């Protein structure tokens, strides 16, 4: 993170040499950590995609400073407390780089402008039918009149159910993809649309993640936080080992029994154990769960409970 003392220097326009060095070093560290490609600052690829010289790092740092100023990112920074300001500087840096990467991607893959040009070409080739309704040009796959028009919300709902078209290749075959996309979209919407609407739908239907993934390490794989099986087994063993068979049984019945939950009186009758003892045991068991385990998310929590139920069943037999 950028240190607050150097941020304060920068905001006053009194950045020291140490501060400047610090900013460049932090930028360089993040480039290495997240493996950003050099092409985000250079218009042409030169040499190794990920090998940044100090000059390249300083270039990115200076572009970042200019971007902050041009976009007015600090205009109201007096509202931001110092304890958040350091994080804010890092966060806008990440947003800045995300923006650069997005701009670079738009030069590869199918940009909005390219789609617009291709659709204009299709319209000129009369692949779709044009009709003017209330002075606005609409387009559809066959002849139509005003009665064929459907409201935009319904069109969006129909569009949202369409599967994405994945684009993986660069260069020359986009025209056929766009033509297929136009015809598919108009068929599914079953309504004429304006040219702007059609361009937007066609742009949205394409999945261009391939072009984003190109710029990340080939070995990079974002891992979903895994369920910590070892920890769960350890905790379950710790809290169930001290239980006797009968305790495991009535705990299982009380906590996981379906369809009707048994009352303490029912358990007392069934197991011949006083209600107060059962109540105390249940309370202590719940306490030991809370004290020993805290799931990172709902999925892990449900997994833990299922394993616990299974273990209690096992121990009661």
């Amino acid at each position, binding site marked *: 993170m950028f240190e607050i003392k150097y941020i304060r220097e920068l905001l006053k326009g009194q950045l020291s040499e140490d501060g400047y060095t610090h900013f460049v070093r932090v930028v360089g560290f993040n480039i290495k950590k997240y493996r950003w490609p050099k092409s985000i600052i250079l218009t042409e690829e030169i040499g190794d995609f990920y090998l940044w010289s100090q000059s390249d790092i300083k270039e990115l740092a200076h572009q970042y400073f200019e971007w902050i100023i041009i976009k007015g990112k600090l205009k109201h920074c007096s509202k931001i407390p110092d304890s958040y300001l350091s994080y*804010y500087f890092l966060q806008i840096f990440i947003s800045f780089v995300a923006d650069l990467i997005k701009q670079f991607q738009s030069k590869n893959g199918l940009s909005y402008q390219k789609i617009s040009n291709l659709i204009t070409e299709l319209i000129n080739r009369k692949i779709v039918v044009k009709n003017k309704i209330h002075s606005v040009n609409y387009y559809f796959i066959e002849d139509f009149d005003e009665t064929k028009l459907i409201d935009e919300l319904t069109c969006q709902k129909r569009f949202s159910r369409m599967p994405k078209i994945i684009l993986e290749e660069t260069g020359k075959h986009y025209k056929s993809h766009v033509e297929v996309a136009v015809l598919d979209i108009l068929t599914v919407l079953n309504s004429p649309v304006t040219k702007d609407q059609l361009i937007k739908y066609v742009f949205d239907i394409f999945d261009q993640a391939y072009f984003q993934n190109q710029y990340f390490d080939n070995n990079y794989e974002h891992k979903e936080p895994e369920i910590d099986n070892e920890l769960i087994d350890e905790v379950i063993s710790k809290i169930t080992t001290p239980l006797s068979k009968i305790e495991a049984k009535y705990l299982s019945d009380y906590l996981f029994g379906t369809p009707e939950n048994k009352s303490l009186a029912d358990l007392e009758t069934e197991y011949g154990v006083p209600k107060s003892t059962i109540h105390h045991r249940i309370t202590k068991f719940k306490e030991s769960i809370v004290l020993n385990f805290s799931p990172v998310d709902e999925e892990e929590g449900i997994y833990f409970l299922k394993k616990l139920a299974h273990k209690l069943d096992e121990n009661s037999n």
Partner: protein
Amino acid sequence: MKTIINFLSQQLDSSFLDEDVQISTIDFERLNKSFADLGLREHQAFKILPRVKQYQIWLVKSVYFDYLGIERTTDHPFIVILESNPETINDEEFVRVNPISPFVEMYSQQEVICDDPEVIGFPFMIELWNSQPILVELLDKYLGYFEYQNIPKENVSISPDLLEFRKIEISRASFLNNSIRSLLGFFESTNENDRRVFVTFDGKRLIPKPENYIVNSEKSFLRAAKSGKKSELIIKNFEISELDFGVIITSTIEGYVVSVESKIAHKLLNSANEPLVPLFHIDRVVYSEIQKAIYYLYLEGINTPIVIRLK
């Protein structure tokens, strides 16, 4: 979007590249001039904190000790907007909040966006799908106020990237709701007497020495009779022998008295990290008129404090 997702899913680093940087004087001076020309003002904190209420925006503490005495930290700090007015649970004030994200690029039509940077200094997005309950004591700094209309729930197609972003944010928010879960766990695992004075160290509860546990002593009745107020005197004596440390906590009419017996230098801080001023006695340090709250007793040379919760 992947850039932002990678950032949020990883721990923050205070590291930086360790190499010499060549400085170009012209670039350096131009940079300073550009920022000086902006005429930016320094942050002015609110002198008086407002009463907690709905639609306020707060910065949450990045570190806290939960009700079970376990230290909780978060790498990426939280700013939240209060979805409701405070309520109480087990005598503790809590409130429902929605985290605020500065990454408005992750907007999906199921959030509220505030484009006005004057509210808290930058545009933000309210994560309406990430509502969490938190204890009011976690609210650290008041930032601003923003009233918004709730968006009607509609089925909107969410891209895999946005789904991943939401999962990360919901997972991170366990830092917030843990304050409530630990409170509930505390109440399940303690009886009413134990709850008034609850001391933990390194995530473990300290059990008071039973032989010094005195309730309703004669002296306390006399004092209570003189003051005309009813009071129940409770004294609890805690020791950590390996640290050569002991603390006696006494409940009185005026509040609590905390007596620390230790050869090691120490300081007692309140929840705002302000040190309390002690009275000195020959063999112990005494803090008097301590009110119901959470306190941190730091012994010299030991990073982890003894957490004292008084109710």
